[in-house]
């Protein structure tokens, strides 16, 4: 799927996105809040969506939030006051970030890498824009390793990704492949919804 098709898909999805927030905020809000509390310094949020996660950021955090969809960003702009800090929004593709190397101390994603068409390329970009020692904090859903549930997610993915995310990504594997050191993985619902913490290691000292 090219960038134009991805943008159009998420522009369309922006109309119904907030429809599902009531229960997800209550059931999955606390683990998101605990994860995002670990953010430090200048923080990049990839996949701002409609800004539903802004309220989970710790106060005072300086956030640069991007999304490929202008319609999502229009809605997200209305929710920036929910964060007691600074949020600047940009329309940008994670696979082609317009930031210099080592610009951020933390990168946050929330249900983003189920939707990026080229996840490995996107994660390599995040590795590039993170400072050495910087942290990647992800709240993501992935393919289950439980046999019958994994099969269900595989079967549903061709349909789900026409309107929204893929359900069978190996995001933990993709994070490692992109060069990060995974430091912590926590299951939030079954082995499908996870928090993933990783860091960009310092270059070896000579």
């Amino acid at each position: 799927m090219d960038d134009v098709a991805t943008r159009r898909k998420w522009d369309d999805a922006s109309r119904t996105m907030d429809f599902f927030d009531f229960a997800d905020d209550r059931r999955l809000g606390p683990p998101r809040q605990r994860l995002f509390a670990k953010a430090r310094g200048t923080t990049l949020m990839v996949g701002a969506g409609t800004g539903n996660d802004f309220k989970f950021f710790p106060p005072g955090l300086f956030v640069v939030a991007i999304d490929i969809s202008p319609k999502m960003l229009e809605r997200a702009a209305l929710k920036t006051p929910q964060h007691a800090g600074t949020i600047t929004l940009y329309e940008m593709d994670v696979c082609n970030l317009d930031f210099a190397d080592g610009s951020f101390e933390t990168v946050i994603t929330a249900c983003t890498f189920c939707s990026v068409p080229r996840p490995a390329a996107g994660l390599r970009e995040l590795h590039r824009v993170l400072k050495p020692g910087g942290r990647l904090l992800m709240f993501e859903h992935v393919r289950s390793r439980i046999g019958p549930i994994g099969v269900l997610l595989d079967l549903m993915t061709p349909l789900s990704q026409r309107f929204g995310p893929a359900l069978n990504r190996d995001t933990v594997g993709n994070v490692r492949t992109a060069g990060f050191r995974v430091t912590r993985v926590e299951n939030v619902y079954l082995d499908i919804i996870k928090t993933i913490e990783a860091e960009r290691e310092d270059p070896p000292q000579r």
Partner: protein
Amino acid sequence: MLFALGDYGFGALVGIVTTLAVRLLVEPGMDMVVAMLLGMAAGMVLHLILGFLAAPLLGMFQTMIPAAFIGMYGGMLFGMRDSMNAGSTTLGAAVLVGAAFGVLVVLALKVYDAALRGVAFDAGR
């Protein structure tokens, strides 16, 4: 607590609706393979519709995963049973079994979730 009750109620609903759809589609004596595939397909479609309706109240994944399990695997089992005319001869009995299957799947997933939840990997430990 309310979410838990909702999860079980929703599981029972998916079980019942799948049961009714399979009973409507599968005749006794129908080829079992066809009946099972038909049951699975019906369950697949129904769980998507019901899941979409319940997700705003119960959460996307907490509805999608149990509903998919009940709809697809339950649909296959109910199709097999109805093609063989093996048990649950009345509609009331079939509905009861469908509801019980739905509740049981939700319970099993909750037990599994409780076992899996928490730290899966920690480089610092």
